[in-house]
């Protein structure tokens, strides 16, 4: 029962036949400690040689929220109760794409153990299978070579292992080995990872979690085997070296590779079905047959449905015969029945209102509110001055949690809310918000950078409805280009450029366009390569750039590009010396 738990010694230990809530909480704590120790390592795995590495931080903050809630589980001895609490905590605290997917892994694990207080190998295998299923469903276009591949291979190994052994420690050891092997393979699975010669960051993070949990559980041998995090495993706080530095010069974060994309054909139809007594499997089967990309999740009291279908009407009719519907949303591509469905949408929204009760009835609610995300006080002030009701701090290196966004959405006291993530890595988190809030309808306009967010906000028409505004704002972001200027944090090759640590990178609309040694040169080169010079360039200086430096830069640009107007503002962002909006 002592801390030694290396694979070679494990065989001589007493087998672990079941695990309960106490051991699971210890294992989660061990995983949290390991994740903290490896946080920087994971952060450093970026395919983009820019300092946007926050996968490790995001996963750590997500898991921390899970552990905090698991520690308060209603029945600490029950594995199902601890996992259920962890799943809920992780969803509320989820940050970034990898955090959201991790929360779905935990949610699946919790579902898969089906209320059992103590888990045997079968329950573990079942939990992993469910974790895989739920995680894949969370992502609209699952991509191999990401965290998804890791949970898939882990689940497959658990399934095989449960046939061979009744020892959970042995099972988890096999799962961990399979996970690390899967992490190593990500390099070959994704072009961006292969180009960069690295492994996937989110996948590596998941392997770290499983590894630490395995060590913790192996060191417990029964119901009495609860461990303090310190004793739970063989130095879990030491960074793992399983993948070897040579393999990862830089790496694509799993999250970036699986960023969800809205759209599809026909009608994207979403709604909630209220129980009690819903049969999830039956619903998934009967509703799933009526469309594609079906996502039917939930429990007997509440089921969330997301289906792409050519004919939403029969789908909605069938669903409404199974339970009360709310939050009905039909995004039409072909515009037929548009008005009918809009009215149904409005009626569903109205029907959802009485249940809200979160806002004092005497406060009149705004028809439409805007919640935005921005790093840097300067950007936050600008967004607020343009009419954003709430601006959540966050961005490239510090993704906001779902809970941060939820709180901001609620604070708007609006019937409908437009969410502007302003960062590619915040979009998936933002898309979770609508499913978690009952008192208002939330739509995401997928702004990938601050210039897009500002353009979208400028297009807001407070007297128009939600759909009309989402359309206006989405159209507005197509007319602005973002040039982000930063310094490479490591040597790499990307997009045909050979990049050395310290090089200045000019990234136009998420693509590296110029590599140079100074900011002014890079910006001039990018602006000079445009077909027609932009009419207006707004220069947002970062927190480390003085006003005098920014003004000097702008003066030089004005001399070179006489057809273009240049404005300088304080953005206050970290890591990017300049963000420029080109219009």
């Amino acid at each position, binding site marked *: 029962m002592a801390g030694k738990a290396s694979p070679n010694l494990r065989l001589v230990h007493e087998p672990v036949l079941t695990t309960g809530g106490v051991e699971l909480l210890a294992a989660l704590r061990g995983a949290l400690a390991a994740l903290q120790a490896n946080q920087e390592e994971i952060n450093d795995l970026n395919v983009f040689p820019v300092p946007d590495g926050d996968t490790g931080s995001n996963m750590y903050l997500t898991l921390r929220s899970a552990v905090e809630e698991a520690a308060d589980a209603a029945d600490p001895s029950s594995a199902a109760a601890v996992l259920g609490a962890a799943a809920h905590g992780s969803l509320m605290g989820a940050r970034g794409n990898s955090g959201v997917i991790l929360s779905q892994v935990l949610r699946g694990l919790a579902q898969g153990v089906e209320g059992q207080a103590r888990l045997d190998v079968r329950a573990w295998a079942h939990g992993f299978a469910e974790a895989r299923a739920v995680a894949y469903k969370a992502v609209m276009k699952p991509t191999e070579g990401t965290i998804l591949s890791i949970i898939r291979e882990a689940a497959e190994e658990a399934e095989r292992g449960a046939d061979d052994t009744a020892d959970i420690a042995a099972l988890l050891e096999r799962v961990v080995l399979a996970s690390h092997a899967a992490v190593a393979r990500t390099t070959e699975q994704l072009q961006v990872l292969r180009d960069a010669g690295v492994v996937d960051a989110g996948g590596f993070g998941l392997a770290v979690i499983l590894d630490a949990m395995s060590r913790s559980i192996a060191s417990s041998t029964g119901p009495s085997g609860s461990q303090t995090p310190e004793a739970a495993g063989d130095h879990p706080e030491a960074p793992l070296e399983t993948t070897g530095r040579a393999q990862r010069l830089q790496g694509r974060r799993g999250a970036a590779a699986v960023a969800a994309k809205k759209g599809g054909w026909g009608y994207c139809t979403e709604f909630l079905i209220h129980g009690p007594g819903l049969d999830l499997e039956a619903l998934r089967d009967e509703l799933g047959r009526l469309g594609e990309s079906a996502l039917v999740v939930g429990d007997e009291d509440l089921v969330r449905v997301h289906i792409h279908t050519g004919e939403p009407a029969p789908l909605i009719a069938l669903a409404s015969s199974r339970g009360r519907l709310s939050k009905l949303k039909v995004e039409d591509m072909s515009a037929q029945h548009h008005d009918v469905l809009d009215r149904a949408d409005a009626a569903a929204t109205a029907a959802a209102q009485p249940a809200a009760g979160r806002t004092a009835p005497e406060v009149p609610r705004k028809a439409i509110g805007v919640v935005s995300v921005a790093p840097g006080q300067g950007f936050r*002030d600008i967004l607020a*001055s*343009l009419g954003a009701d709430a601006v959540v701090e966050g961005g490239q290196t510090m993704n906001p949690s779902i809970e941060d966004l939820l709180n901001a959405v609620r604070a708007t006291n609006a019937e409908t809310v437009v969410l502007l993530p302003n960062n590619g890595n915040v979009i998936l988190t933002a898309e979770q918000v609508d499913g978690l809030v009952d008192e208002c309808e939330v739509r995401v306009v997928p702004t990938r950078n601050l210039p897009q967010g500002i353009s979208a906000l*400028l297009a807001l028409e*407070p007297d128009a409805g939600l759909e009309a505004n989402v359309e206006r704002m989405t159209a507005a972001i197509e007319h*602005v280009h973002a040039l982000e200027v930063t310094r490479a944090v490591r040597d790499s090759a990307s997009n045909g450029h050979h990049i050395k640590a310290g090089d200045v990178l000019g990234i136009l609309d998420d693509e590296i366009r110029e590599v140079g040694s100074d900011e002014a040169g890079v910006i001039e080169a990018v602006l000079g390569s445009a077909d027609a010079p932009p*009419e207006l360039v*707004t220069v947002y200086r970062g927190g480390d750039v003085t006003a005098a430096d920014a003004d000097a830069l702008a003066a030089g640009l004005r001399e070179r590009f006489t057809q273009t107007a240049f404005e300088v*503002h304080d953005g206050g962002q970290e890591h990017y010396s300049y963000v420029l909006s080109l*219009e």
Partner: protein
Amino acid sequence: MIRIVTDSTSDILPDEAKRLDIDVVPLTVRFGDEQFRDGVDLDPDAFYRRLPNTTVQPSTSQPTPEQFAEVYRRHIGAGDSVVSVHISAKLSGTLQSASLAASEFPDGAVRVVDSTTVSAGMQFLVRTALADVAAGSDAAAVEKGVTDRRDRVGVYVLLDTLTYLHRGGRIGRAQSFVGGILNVKPLLCVRDGEVHPEARVRSRQQGIAKLVEIAVAQGPLEGLAAFHCGAPAQLSLIQPLLEAAYPDLEVIPGQLGAVVGTYSGPGGVGIALLRAR
């Protein structure tokens, strides 16, 4: 005979007024102690030349009732009746002065009408009223023609800044556009007699594209005008685009005069349109 009277916020200049044989009663523009009759002592070009070089901000005042009474007396004395078309009562007290003056005369002799619009938008109402007169309508029918058409008039203007409108207290519902940190160009519209926010753009090019888009979306049109605020280059940018969008319409060029220009400030460009029934 029916005479048409309007005020100088129609931005109909004296030569044009003479040609149309109408009366344009001037409002007053003041720079400190200096006082000018809008369009008479101070033409638009002179006003916009002066505006950037002054430390005193201009102010405006409506015509006195006596200015209107003089004109009305002349026409009534000659045995004519008057239809008097004026700037939106929500933007100026001009209509009030005209109404006071009209009350001196027998009922129906002077019909004062709120155009609920301004500048080139008012010009459509004045010109169509003249056409009605020429077609032989009686005064009541001419008045009704104006009130029927005014809801089909739209005026949209892209300003360089909201400062002048804000300072002049005419901002109306465009208040929500005030206070930005970024240099945002407001696109405003005069609707129901008031200034409304229409859109915000980051550049003049975007704004001109938006104005053309509005003109197209509001079609079919009976009338289309383009105007500038001391910025003829802007007018020459938008005019060909409008002409291309409506090859069968004459795009009437113009300029905001001193009184309206006091609130628009320099650098703006806009359109006025009369939608088909």
